[in-house]
């Protein structure tokens, strides 16, 4: 997924070089050499990307229209739209779409909000600020699988979270069996996902905050702006580009929800936590239906493309 954010160096290098005036023909060979070395430098990355990202993706899209299987002696046949017809008639697919939307709709604003709040907190100069930066960032460098396993224990009926709820309420609150109740499983996964990933976006917000010139704040203070007004009219507009980046990355990350589900709930209970990617992996590997999994992936790709395009359109420069 990260590939979608890679800057494309090819584009810049490919800008047409200013046409050399005909009176200086001897400059051409040097231009050519520069061009060649430029291409030579991006070649390794370009070849790897083509071979391991673009080609498999294109092959995958092709497979979606066949009946290819992971393990089978039968020849692969073209079956047209069969896989898609089956997919759109599958209630589990619609359920996974709903789950992912639910996850994204909650996670995108809450996670970016919390990350911004954390960034504002640590964007101060005081003793021990690095300590807090490290603490907030720690979950990010921990693998999601490890985090999921730990929270799996914490979410148990007699786990840490319920014990804390019970202790804090003097035994009044008897917490649910978080991950085994269709009503609480997704919120539980949402909470842990935000906890794990907020630190990463905090760093991005922080970079944005630090790029805002201090003079603007001084000027605002001279004008007698309150702290809220400083935030509203200096900080917020200054974070315009950061905002777009955070929005797009969290959205894509949220749509690709998989690790937590695979480790903690396997899509259950009653499909309440299944996601598009989880369904693709389940059909493709556990159920050996390569073509069906490819169809799911293709639909997912189109979906992400559409959502990103809409976001790009909404956050475009409006002047």
């Amino acid at each position: 997924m990260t590939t979608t954010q890679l800057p494309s160096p090819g584009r810049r290098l490919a800008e047409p070089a200013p046409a050399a005036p005909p009176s200086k023909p001897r400059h051409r060979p040097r231009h050519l050499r520069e061009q060649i070395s430029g291409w030579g430098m991006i070649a390794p990355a370009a070849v790897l990307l083509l071979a391991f990202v673009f080609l498999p993706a294109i092959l995958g899209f092709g497979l979606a229209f066949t009946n290819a299987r992971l393990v089978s002696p039968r020849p692969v046949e073209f079956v047209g739209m069969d896989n898609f017809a089956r997919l759109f008639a599958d209630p589990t697919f619609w359920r996974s779409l709903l789950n992912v939307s639910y996850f994204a709709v909650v996670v995108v604003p809450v996670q970016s909000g919390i990350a911004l709040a954390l960034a504002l907190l640590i964007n101060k100069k005081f003793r021990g600020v690095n300590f807090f930066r490290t603490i907030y960032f720690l979950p990010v460098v921990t693998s999601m699988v490890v985090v999921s396993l730990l929270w799996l224990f914490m979410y148990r009926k007699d786990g840490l979270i319920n014990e804390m709820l019970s202790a804090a309420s003097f035994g009044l609150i008897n917490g649910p069996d978080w991950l085994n109740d269709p009503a609480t499983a997704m919120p539980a996964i949402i909470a842990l996902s935000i906890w794990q990933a907020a630190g990463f976006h905090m760093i991005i917000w922080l970079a944005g905050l630090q790029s805002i010139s201090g003079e603007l704040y001084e000027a605002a203070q001279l004008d007698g702006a309150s702290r809220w007004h400083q935030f509203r009219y200096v900080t917020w507009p200054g974070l315009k580009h950061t905002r777009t980046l955070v929005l797009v990355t969290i959205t894509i990350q949220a749509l690709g929800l998989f690790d937590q589900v695979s480790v903690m709930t396997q899509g259950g209970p009653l499909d309440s936590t299944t996601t598009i990617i989880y369904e693709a992996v389940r059909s493709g590997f556990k159920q050996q239906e390569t073509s069906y999994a490819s169809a799911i992936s293709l639909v997912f790709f189109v979906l992400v493309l559409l959502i990103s395009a809409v976001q790009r359109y909404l956050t475009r420069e409006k002047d």
Partner: protein
Amino acid sequence: MNKRFTRILATSVAAAALVGSLGACGKGSASAPSAGSNEITMWTHNAGNAEELKAIENIVDSYNKSAGAKAKIKVQAFPQDSYNDSVVAAAASGKLPCIVDIDGPNVPNWAWAKYLTPLKLDADVSKNLPSTVAKWEGETYAVGTYDVALAMLARASDLKAAGVRVATVEKPWTKDEFQDALTKLKALGKWEYPLDMGTAGTGEWLPYAYSPFLQSFGGDLINRDGFQSADGALNGDKAIEWAQWFRGLADQGFMAKKSGKDSTQDFLNNKSGILYTGSWAADKARAAVGEDLVVMPSVDLGNGPKIGGASWQWGVTSGCDNSAAAMDYLSYSLKPENLAAVAKATGTIPATDEAAALIPAYAEGGTNRIFMELSRNYAVMRPETPAYPFIATEYGKAVQDILAGADPKTALDKSVKAIDANIKSNGGYKN
């Protein structure tokens, strides 16, 4: 995008395609690693199980040193989680080793996909535990050196305190007796849930552990006559009865909808009264509980107790260019002393009586002898069809959904529909 960029892009795509097609050419030469030399490779799933791996390496060493060795065997061990993926990937690129181990129920799938070749062994396997010999369409494709058996473990003192008789192979508990036993055990107030069925299990555990109950009720995963449809078997009245009974165990507070991570440990820590688990847990339990431990057969829910048959087994791949040597090694590994060595190391049931006689616990009158009887009397093979891996995932999901509160009929109908569609889309999995 200027012209040059387009041109270079086109060249790169062409180059990448060339690389891709060169890779594809490799497909033709099967079993490349072993070609030419008198060495054949053997893959096993037990990189994470030091005792089992050691036992297998010992057999391989002694074979390699024996005078009659037809080839040198080289062992490569994989972690269990990635083993199947490795085999599938190797098969796709034509790089399968000569000998592979396979989880029993997957044998028909791999045989159908032509990964495996029918075995022609010198060793006589007719007296082996039937569940250690994997057959499909009349041919033997894999043999196991051991099997495992499901049973119920309990403490004799608890049963006595509750006034419940100990179930035996001659007289297993009936459905009503089981209900009565659980009610009485729960009344003791010792445990939140008297029964631990390992409901937190995932993957193959779900069909392995719970489809025998379905079969004891009279249902099944699929109609075994031709293996073309699950309709009526997996969603018939008997199957609904099974689902309601199973769900009822949770609803009545006899077992957790999702048990702890380590059911055996929970039993040893006295968090449950009856543990439904495999023979692999027996040695550990006996070491902790001692004489008080009783091993009981599973419940008779109408058609006698049933347990899942078949564990990991060995097969020879169809691309192997020295299959005579591979078969020779397998025959060698089936000698009683070798069977006994592996069974001893893994705490499993040896495949033959001769081998069992070499292990005190499994010899006549031994403490683990009961597992051998359970296996011989009650083992039901998981359906011997290439559709099994698919059926297993659907059934596993149905079990989880039913426990989570789904309507049994709806959940099972959904599985049946998916299974039947899968079989149809594979042309009936006909050879």
